[in-house]
């Protein structure tokens, strides 16, 4: 069988609006049959992201994150404080087997993360039971919710993901909490739970090959093209920086 290749982008930290815009650029490409892409990135400044259908007014309930900027994601779920974390995205093109199987994409990402953490001496597992509450009553923060397949360390959620499907293509992005953020002090990260000095870059380097293998790809490391960055900036200006988008609910 021929090798399936993907682009691997080890990105620099960017603003929330540009991060979400660039993920959407990856989904755009995937929706017209472009390359599968795996991207790792960070956030500067720290940013609160709202789930696509989440009401902006819910933010009032979380004063700790009021000082940081806001962006609305194209994916569902709860709010995330993106600060001392590793963030990843995966874009799978239409026609690829993983595009039709959302569960398998979660399992590949989260299963390989649990394996990676185990090799780093951190005992983690996949959540087997979802939060009992319905969507409308769930906690504001994503990492206080529980869905089947979330990555747990003890009873704490340390990894979660969400998907956006456009036609037959899919974007999955997710966060792994590495260290407690001053903007969400209720959420410990891996370093807090393991009492070890874990760096975001070290976790990324340990996980990358396992994630790529779990997805069944061979990676070609790449960076954004000038055209992609330009289209990303345009998407910031036409969507992710606009109140009409960020405060749409």
């Amino acid at each position: 069988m021929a090798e399936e290749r993907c682009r691997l982008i080890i990105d620099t930290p960017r603003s929330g609006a540009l991060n979400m815009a660039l993920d959407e650029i990856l989904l755009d490409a995937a929706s017209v049959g472009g390359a599968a892409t795996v991207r790792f990135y960070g956030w500067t400044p720290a940013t609160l992201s709202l789930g696509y259908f989440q009401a902006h007014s819910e933010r009032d309930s979380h004063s700790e994150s009021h000082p940081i900027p806001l962006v609305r994601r194209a994916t569902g779920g709860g709010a995330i404080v993106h600060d001392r974390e590793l963030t990843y995205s995966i874009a799978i093109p239409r026609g690829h087997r993983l595009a039709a199987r959302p569960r398998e994409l979660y399992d590949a990402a989260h299963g390989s993360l649990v394996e990676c953490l185990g090799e780093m001496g951190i005992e983690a597992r996949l959540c087997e039971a979802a939060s009992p509450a319905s969507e409308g009553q769930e906690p504001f923060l994503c990492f206080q919710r529980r869905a089947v397949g979330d990555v747990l360390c003890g009873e704490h959620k340390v990894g979660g993901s969400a998907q956006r499907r456009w036609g037959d293509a899919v974007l999955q992005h997710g966060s792994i909490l590495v260290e407690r953020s001053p903007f969400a002090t209720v959420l410990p990260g891996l370093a807090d739970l393991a009492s070890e000095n874990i760096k975001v870059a070290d976790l990324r380097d340990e996980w990358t090959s396992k994630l790529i293998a779990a997805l069944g790809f061979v990676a070609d490391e790449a960076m954004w093209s000038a055209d992609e960055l330009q289209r990303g900036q345009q998407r910031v200006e036409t969507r992710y920086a606009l109140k009409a988008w960020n405060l749409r609910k």
Partner: protein
Amino acid sequence: MKPEDLLYATTHEWVHVAADESGGKVATVGISAFAVESLTDLVFIELPEVGRQVKAGESFGEIESVKAVSDVYSPVDGEVIEVNEVLRDDLERLSQDPYEAGWVAKIRMSDEAALAELMDHTAYQKQCADEAH
């Protein structure tokens, strides 16, 4: 409605076309059982506004499952004349009865050309089988 009698879009919407009292064509649109099953645990649906003009292939609604947001695409050209309001409070209907009680919208068709792009049940079954393997 029997799944065998419907037409399907590659994006997993089903269509049933019938004549209304004035002789115009009205398409009832829903989401296939295959798609509903793959989404799992539906939590929210955003329905189109009645009166909206839509083009075939245009996103006219969105559906959220526990972890995924997916667009719902219009398979035909026309005007949305009715939506299944019950789904807003009872998405179980979509999961349990996608071809009857779980219909999403009715569209008065302005043009029938888009129907030629849709699949019959046999072709759609083949697409689903290809995606599942």
